[in-house]
């Protein structure tokens, strides 16, 4: 694509810079709204992040307060919330990747093996549905299905002996990660499998013929033909996932929080909201947020570096 663009530019007879400007002003106008929006809602807040190093004062505004250096960072690092929010965020992220990442791959392989096209289509359509359910509805579904008393699914799990009879799946901190990750898989497994199913449909049919002649059974064909086809896609998506390891989405965690499970459910993003917006500790909230963003950015750069090493192409 890039090479293509270059040759086009090269082949055109040389024009003066004035010609380009005259041609490009229309493109600049088309870019203008998007660039202004990004400037105001992304770059201005980035500039405002210096509040993390300043004392907030209402009169002086975001950037006019007294410079206090690392005070608020040290306050966060020194507080008991630092380790617990960091640990909760990492735990949720790690389990989401560990369990949530392979799920769509397995699902795609299963769907691809279904021979009856009608049934295949039905399964595919069904597994996409949960993706469209809003987080609020999803969390309230969890609340009724896994209720301590009369929850259909919690009763079922108790019947199978998966959880102890007295377990309160919603109100005990130790079940929080499982509930979060499990519902996440339920919701997005189907959606995330689309990309793998598409990759599988591009398998060269000659490979199947060759394997058949060599006497490979269906399982062997899955292992030696279909899985290898998915590997490049798996690598890219895995690296992208690793990059956002501290990016546990605010939405679902916040809605699933209650006073009973807060020990496991207070993650960095919800903590920033609680201290920074709800209780108006602007400088402190900014510092915590900035810390996360920097860590995330470092993770992403490393992931990008690894990606370039392994696959030859990075995200940036």
């Amino acid at each position, binding site marked *: 694509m890039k090479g293509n663009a270059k040759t086009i530019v090269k082949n055109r007879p040389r024009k003066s810079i004035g010609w380009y400007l005259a041609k490009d002003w229309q493109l600049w106008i088309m870019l203008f709204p998007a660039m202004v929006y990004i400037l105001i809602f992304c770059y201005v807040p980035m500039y405002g992040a210096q509040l993390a190093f300043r004392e907030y004062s209402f009169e002086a505004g975001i950037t006019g307060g007294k410079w206090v250096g690392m005070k608020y960072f040290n306050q966060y690092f020194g507080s008991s919330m630092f380790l617990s929010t960091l640990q909760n965020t990492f735990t949720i992220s790690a389990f989401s990747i560990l369990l949530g990442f392979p799920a769509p791959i397995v699902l795609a392989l299963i769907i691809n093996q279904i021979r009856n096209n009608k049934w295949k289509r039905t399964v595919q359509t069904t597994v996409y549905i949960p993706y469209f359910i809003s987080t609020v509805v999803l*969390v309230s579904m969890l609340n009724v299905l896994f209720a301590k008393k009369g929850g*259909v699914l919690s*009763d079922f799990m108790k019947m199978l002996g998966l959880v102890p009879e007295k377990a309160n799946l919603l109100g005990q901190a130790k079940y929080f990660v499982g509930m979060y990750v499990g519902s996440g898989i339920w919701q997005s497994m189907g959606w995330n499998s689309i990309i793998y199913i598409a990759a599988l449909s591009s398998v060269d049919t000659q490979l199947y013929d060759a394997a058949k002649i060599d006497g490979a059974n269906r399982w062997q064909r899955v292992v030696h033909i279909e899985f290898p086809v998915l590997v490049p896609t798996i690598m890219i998506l895995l690296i992208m996932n690793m990059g956002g390891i501290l990016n546990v989405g605010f939405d679902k965690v916040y809605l699933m929080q209650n006073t009973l499970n807060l020990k496991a459910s207070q993650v960095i993003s919800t903590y920033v909201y609680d201290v920074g917006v709800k209780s108006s500790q602007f400088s402190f909230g900014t510092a915590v947020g900035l810390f996360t963003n920097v860590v995330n950015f470092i993770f992403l750069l490393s992931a990008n570096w690894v990606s370039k090493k392994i696959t030859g192409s990075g995200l940036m």
Partner: protein
Amino acid sequence: MTAITNKDLRKTEVHNNKIRETSLSDRIFGGVVIILSILCFLIILYPLWFVVIASISNSDLVNQGKVTFLPVDIRFYGYQQVFTDHRIWNGYMNTIIYVVAGTALNLAVTMPAAYALSRPDFRARNPVMMYFVFTMYFSGGLVPLYMTISSLGLISTKWILIIFVAVNTYNLIIARTFIQNSIPNDLYEAAILDGCSHFTYFFKVVLPLSKAIISVEMLYYGVFHWNDYFNALVYNYNQANEPLQMVLRRILLLNEAYASGNGGVQGGYGQSSADQVKYAVMIVSTVPILCVYPFVQKYFEKGVMIGAVKG
């Protein structure tokens, strides 16, 4: 990644059917696949089915765990309550405003920018692209953003929920990739020879040829606005402006907190019937999107595919 056409798909299917399963191991494999696919199907479908049957069953029986596979003691009390609840209709109205106005704004901002970035002869293309892409990976954080919005005087207005997020970088990239890959540059060369400006070319040629990507963008942005509660939670304190999802949160979750002893009854319902109302609310708020879904499914799949192609 290579492009996948329907023809390729059909070829694979025909091919798969040709393979005869004679060996025992293959037959066992086939059986396992069917069992696993049924299991997946049930795991995904059952929670949805349960909400449907619970919404029309006697809520006392639901709470005792006596409703499992079929509705018991059918009643429509929950729906009656929902349809007479002005909060829900107010929320619905607001959400429709945000979805329609927000998505229109999204398209008006995203499509022209995507076109400009798709032009290979646009000199500043790469720096401008970096300007957008950088915001995907780094941000100032929630608090500075909140304060920026607050200093613009947008807190607790309907505007912020329409304006936010006017352009999403990921959506911008897939639109750009689509325009770049599927509209032949020859068309542009020809149009230029005829003295066509970028504006005319964009409106007369690019937009009509971009129906597929416009549908994808509309759906992505539309679903975002429909499901969004976070921005309403953080940037809006005026109950009259609340979108449906915030109303749902009040009815479904804050009331739930009361039931488990955490205080704060927000609904005006008696506790005995509150549960049935909840199921009805879940259905009423999800049905519109599920009704649209079968018609737009292919566009969603297409969107994922375009997004996967690196531009």
